[in-house]
């Protein structure tokens, strides 16, 4: 196996553990967990989420990681502004990328789940849906700002400000959307009244553990990659400077070999 510059023994172990966990999760989700079917006591009809309940094992961990990741981004942004930390700048950026990915995954799996259960791909009355969607869009804006030009310091400070405002904006959007939905649509978040128990509960818990493991593993690699990019930027300049100095030294050496004196010597 060839050595990857972003992996270490620990990250490889974690990666293998997460991969095995993911395989176990698929087995659990499709074999151990029964479809959610209950009987309505009054009508005798079959109700429940049926096979759609299995989407929970992707949807819930993705949502958890998305919010966890953006919390890390906000904390990182605060530390960047406070202590001018390069380390936290790289962490904030890496975490936001994973957060955006997980927010998208949350929205997609939620939408697929909503089609059979709520009979609609999208529900304007659900505050969490709207907040997550706006959060996803805000995060794309944050990532766009990270890619803007400027020196590393300028970019770090600018991103940190947008990262801090990200948190403020999510809170404001969440509050206003909640109010909007309660005043206009008259439909509260339609969480199915099923109680989660047995294998389903265990699998859900297991899925969250695997999810957090995957987040940490992705963070390690994304962080190291971004860190190497930083270093290559910095050392790239140093190398160029060293090359220029060597060139100047060569000229001086040639001049002294030919004329016996260096250019400086001639002028003095």
């Amino acid at each position: 196996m060839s050595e990857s510059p972003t992996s270490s023994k620990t990250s490889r172990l974690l990666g293998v553990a997460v991969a095995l966990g993911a395989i176990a999760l698929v087995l659990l989700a499709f074999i151990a967990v029964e479809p959610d079917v209950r009987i309505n006591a009054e009508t005798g009809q079959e109700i429940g989420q049926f096979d759609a309940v299995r989407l929970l094992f992707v949807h819930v961990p993705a949502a958890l990681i998305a919010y966890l990741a953006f919390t890390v981004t906000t904390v990182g942004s605060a530390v960047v502004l406070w202590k001018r930390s390069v380390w936290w700048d790289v962490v904030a950026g890496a975490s936001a990328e994973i957060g955006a990915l997980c927010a998208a995954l949350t929205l997609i799996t939620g939408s697929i789940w909503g089609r059979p259960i709520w009979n609609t791909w999208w529900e304007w009355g659900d505050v969490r849906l709207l907040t997550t969607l706006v959060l996803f869009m805000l995060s794309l804006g944050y990532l766009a700002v990270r890619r803007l030009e400027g020196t590393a310091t300028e970019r770090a400070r600018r991103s940190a400000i947008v990262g801090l405002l990200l948190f403020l904006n999510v809170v404001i959007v969440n509050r206003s959307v909640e109010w909007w939905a309660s005043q206009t649509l008259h439909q509260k978040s339609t969480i199915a009244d099923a109680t989660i128990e047995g294998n389903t509960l265990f699998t859900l818990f297991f899925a969250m553990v695997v999810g957090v493991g995957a987040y940490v593993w992705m963070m390690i690699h994304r962080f190291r990659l971004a860190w190497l990019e930083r270093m290559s930027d910095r050392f790239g300049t140093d190398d160029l400077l060293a090359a220029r100095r060597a060139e100047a030294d060569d000229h001086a050496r040639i001049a002294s070999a030919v004329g016996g004196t260096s250019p400086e010597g001639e002028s003095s």
Partner: protein
Amino acid sequence: MVEARPRVGGAAQAVLVAKKDLRIEARSRVAINQVVPFALLVLVLFGFALDADTAALRNFAPGLFWLAVLLAAVLAVHRSVSVESGDGVGDALLLAGLRPDAVFVGKTLALGGQLLALAVVLLGGIVVLYGASIEDAGLLVITLIAAVIGIASTGTVYGALLAGQQARETVLPMLLLPVLSPVLIAATRAWGDAMGTVATDGWAWLALLAGFAAIYSLVGAMSYGTLLEAAHV
């Protein structure tokens, strides 16, 4: 400071900056010649998109109005930033000893003034084109002012962050529009009440708008110095 010189208070500094921006606008006429026609065009396009359904247009007039204002505001923010970033005006303002928070307030006032003028024209537009009627003028006007302060302060904050950036034209709407979604919601609801198209408590929505405007004005005034430093000018 070597020489004593006439001290100019923060409020006077803000007025100076606002007057400077408005004077540039009055002479270049970008807002009047480009931004206002664009916003009116958007109103006409909404009419086409909704198949000139008069009842629908009247019902959705507040939302369409505020959407047109937001889109035009993106253009106005670009303009407000670009008069600053050319020739290093931003640096010059700070070197001249102006307080960053006064610069923020001044730019917000100038931008807000332009947006207010734009909104008045657009209000005429929705009355004529969509048949909107005004039932509560007080609520309408106060909502307008609160929303414009919210949009102008947010626009000034994000505009400053992107000053001097090549990619500003594409990144600014991406940053600004999701942030302003609460303003769109609240202003639309409040105007819906003021125009009698929805049964809701418009004054409660006005409170939300005022809160938003207050938060962003505060954030902007407190962080503008840092923003200017962080921006690549």
